[in-house]
Structure formats: structure tokens, C-alpha cells
């Protein structure tokens, strides 16, 4: 399997080129709490399920905002107001997802860290964050002006479309991690 070969190579490379990081990952997964999560029959599935609920809420609420930016849904709600109402729940869910994800990561740090799809997932999330930041800095600045207009500006549509595409990618890559663990 190509992925196995890549991971094995990546492991060797990382151990050689980033011994500090590799060392830290090995230390992390050897800690008592990480070991408990890895070995307990019910703990990992429970944390994973919490993670799935949390990411469902992250993506679902982001989709609500993105569909508004694209002018496809919630058109009866001013965009700025909708974003202000929904985003706190997005952040809360993201926090839970990150904590659950961090716990799962810790339980098998080297395997996840060197997994192509896990790395891709983090990258896509970073890009999604960047997209959100760009939106807030530019188009989102005067959302009060265009938030109730018939059509949303191009910048908002672009931000919404890019966001949806990136988060769909996060889900796809995230799911693929489970199929490529060694």
C-alpha cells in the first residue's frame, strides 16, 4: 500500500530531521493519560464520538453562515446578525472538537503526526481559518451595509464558497485518516 510506504519513509525522515519533534511525540504518547486512552476499550470510542458530534456542529453552523454569504439560505436574516448569532456556537463546538482531537492525537501521536491525511486535514483547517480572517478583515468589515441587500457582494460569495470547499475537504481527509492508520 502506497500510504504505508510513505508513512514509513516519513517516520524515518522525521526521526532524522526533526529528532526533537519526534522525541516529543514519543514522549507524549507514552504519558499515562495517553496510554489509558489508547488502551481503554471504551474511552477512545467515547472521545471519538464527542469529536464527531463537535465537528458536525462546527461544519453545520459554518454551513449556515456560508450559505448565507452565498445568498442561498437564511436570506430573511441580516448577514452580520446571523454571523454574530451563530459563530459563538461554532467556536464552542470547535473548542470541544480540538480538545477531543488533541486527546486522540496524544494517544497515538507519531502515527497521526506522520499520516498524510492528518497533516492534510490540519493544513485545510489552517486555510479555512485564513479564509475566515481575510473575510473579516475585508468584505466583512462593512457587513452592516450589504448584509440586508438583495445580493451579497462577490467577496462574501467567494469566502462562503471557499469555506464550504475547505471544510468538505477537512471531513474527507479526516475520515480517510481512520482508513490509513498503521
Amino acid at each position, binding site marked *: 500500500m502506497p500510504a504505508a510506504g510513505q508513512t514509513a519513509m516519513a517516520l524515518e525522515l522525521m526521526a532524522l530531521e526533526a529528532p526533537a519533534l519526534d522525541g516529543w511525540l514519543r514522549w507524549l504518547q507514552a504519558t499515562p493519560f495517553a496510554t489509558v486512552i489508547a488502551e481503554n476499550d471504551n474511552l477512545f*470510542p467515547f472521545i471519538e464520538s464527542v469529536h*464527531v458530534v463537535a465537528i458536525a456542529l*462546527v461544519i*453545520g*453552523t459554518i*454551513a449556515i453562515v456560508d450559505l448565507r454569504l452565498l445568498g442561498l439560505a437564511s436570506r430573511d436574516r441580516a448577514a452580520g446578525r446571523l454571523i454574530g448569532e451563530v459563530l459563538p456556537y461554532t467556536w464552542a463546538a470547535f473548542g470541544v472538537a480540538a480538545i477531543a482531537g488533541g486527546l486522540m492525537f496524544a494517544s497515538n501521536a507519531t502515527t497521526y503526526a506522520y499520516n498524510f491525511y492528518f497533516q492534510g486535514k490540519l493544513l485545510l483547517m489552517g486555510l479555512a481559518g485564513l479564509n475566515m480572517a481575510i473575510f473579516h478583515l475585508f468584505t466583512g468589515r462593512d457587513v452592516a451595509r450589504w448584509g440586508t441587500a438583495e445580493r451579497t457582494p462577490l467577496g462574501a460569495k467567494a469566502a462562503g464558497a471557499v469555506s464550504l470547499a475547505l471544510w468538505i475537504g477537512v471531513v474527507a481527509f479526516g475520515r480517510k485518516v481512520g482508513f490509513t492508520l498503521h
Partner: protein
Amino acid sequence: MYPHLTLPIARTLNDFCVWLDGTALSQVIQSQAWIVPTVQSIHILAFALVVASALMINLRLTGIFARDQSLDRISARFLPFIWWPMLVLLATGAIMIIGEPARALKNPVFQVKVLLVIAAVIVTCIFQRMRRNPALGDPTHGPRAAPRVIAAISMVLWVSIIFAGRWIAYA
């Protein structure tokens, strides 16, 4: 392992799983490695829409969210994002069942999930009927307990369904 497997219905189920596993469609799903992960991802995206929409309605039901808009209006916005994705969930779920019949149909966790889904659909249908009741949507003058109970039951059901869905892999 499972005492109920001696019942006639269990043998019928077993025969059905064996038959389904042998169909051409099932073989295709099993042999093409990309199908199950892709279908699972679509399944996740669909229930993300469902649970987020349910949360928004339930938050309005308890008077926390968007109180300036009526419950009926909020429901009109979000209920379509429960019903339409549910069709996608059924379709993707069907593909996963056809691809791995025994893993799904004979698994008690999956069976519990199906019951929970039926319960969630019933609760959503009941809510669909009640949403126009102005008393329900008024957090200050309407009933306090009933909306909260409905909202709590709804969220517990959706979250339990997601937990059950993940736990299929571990049972």
C-alpha cells in the same frame, strides 16, 4: 454470543445478509476502496446539517436564540435542512448497509441507532405540527417546561444517534 439469534427472524435476517452480501452491487461497493470512505464523508456532512439545524431550532425553542423572529419563521428556515439531508442520510446509509450487510444489520448498536432515528423523525414530525402554536415560541409568556423538554429530547436523540453511528465500528 447473541441469544436472540436463535429466533426465526434472526435466521431470516442472517439469510438476507448473506444474500445481500452476494449481490453485484454489494460486491462493487466492497471491491472499490474509495466508495465507503466517500459515502461516509457525505453521511457526515449530511448529519452535520441536520444536527446544526436541530440545534438552531432547539435554541429558539428555549428562547436563547433569535428571539425577535417567531419560532415558525426559524423552523421554516431550518426544517428543510433537516428533512432534505435526511434523504441523503438514508441513501448513504443504504449504500453502507448494502456494502457491509452483516456489519450493519446484525449489529445491536446499529439496531439501536435505527430505533433512535425513528424516534428522532417522530419528534421532528410532532414539532413540525406544533411549530405554528404561538404559545410554544413565546419564551416569556408561553409554557416554559414543554419547549425545554422537547428541545432536550431532540438534542439527546441526535447526539445519541451520532454516538451510536460511531460505535457500530467498535461493537
